[in-house]
């Protein structure tokens, strides 16, 4: 009996205006608990490094090297050409550093 007006009254009481709760550092606290990014992106610097080495190799093979380059190429250690290997390693290192810093 008289259930409908009773319901309307209660519905109006229960439907209070939603009040916005200020963030107040909440988001920062959540972000602080998130797991660290997985370190599985090593493949990117490796690809960059290998591509750089390939580029150097192609450049040496298609252009007539200067005298200095010729001489430096002659420096070997047990048959290993020191300058190209050192340059390649340096470039690889720089590439890896650049790629990992970007992440």
């Amino acid at each position, binding site marked *: 009996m008289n259930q409908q007006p009773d319901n309307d009254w209660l519905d109006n*009481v*229960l439907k209070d205006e939603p009040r916005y*709760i200020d963030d107040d550092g909440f988001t920062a606290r959540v*972000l602080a608990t998130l797991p660290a990014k997985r370190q599985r992106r090593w493949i990117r610097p490796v690809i960059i490094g290998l591509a750089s080495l390939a580029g150097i190799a192609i450049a040496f093979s298609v252009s007539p090297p200067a005298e200095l380059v010729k001489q430096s190429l002659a420096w070997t250690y047990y048959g290993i050409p020191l300058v190209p290997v050192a340059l390649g390693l340096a470039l690889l290192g720089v590439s890896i550093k650049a790629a990992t810093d970007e992440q």
Partner: protein
Amino acid sequence: MELSDSDLIARVLLREDHHAFGELVKRHQSNVRALLRKLTGGNDTRADELAQDTFLRAYRSLGKFRGDAKFSTWLYRIAYNVFQSDVRAAKPSEPFDESVHAVPQPPATDAVDLQEDVATAMRALNDNERAAITLCYTTGMTHEEAAEVLQWPLGTVKTNILTAKKKLRRYLAPWKDRPLA
């Protein structure tokens, strides 16, 4: 240009972008915290801890979000599960003592007093009744949406709302003939 929730989710999944997830938290924190505050009967500190846990779980299981429901509905479901786990882990709460929490006679038509009495009356409900009422009235969900969040049959949602309203009507009876502000 503001990115949609879907765009932000994609960024989180593809790049583990914490900034994108932070934007999602900023957008939804108020509603999730409000829901949990209601579910915990106004225990703001506990509600905020549960809200933090909610977002952490959401981050970890974001890959399972299929987009067939709204992101907010999915978050509410996680929040409710977190709340339920916390209730199960906690000691059983003390039974509601009506003599202690008796709703006073309304001295004036003050909306703040009314809301305080509503909050007190909500604490008289059991967890299921409070959850059903909160989802359908505070967050404005339909019964069907609430059933999805609570993972209950629709009939159970309706039954809990009916019993909750019966109790609330009794507790709030002194306010009935007063004009609402």
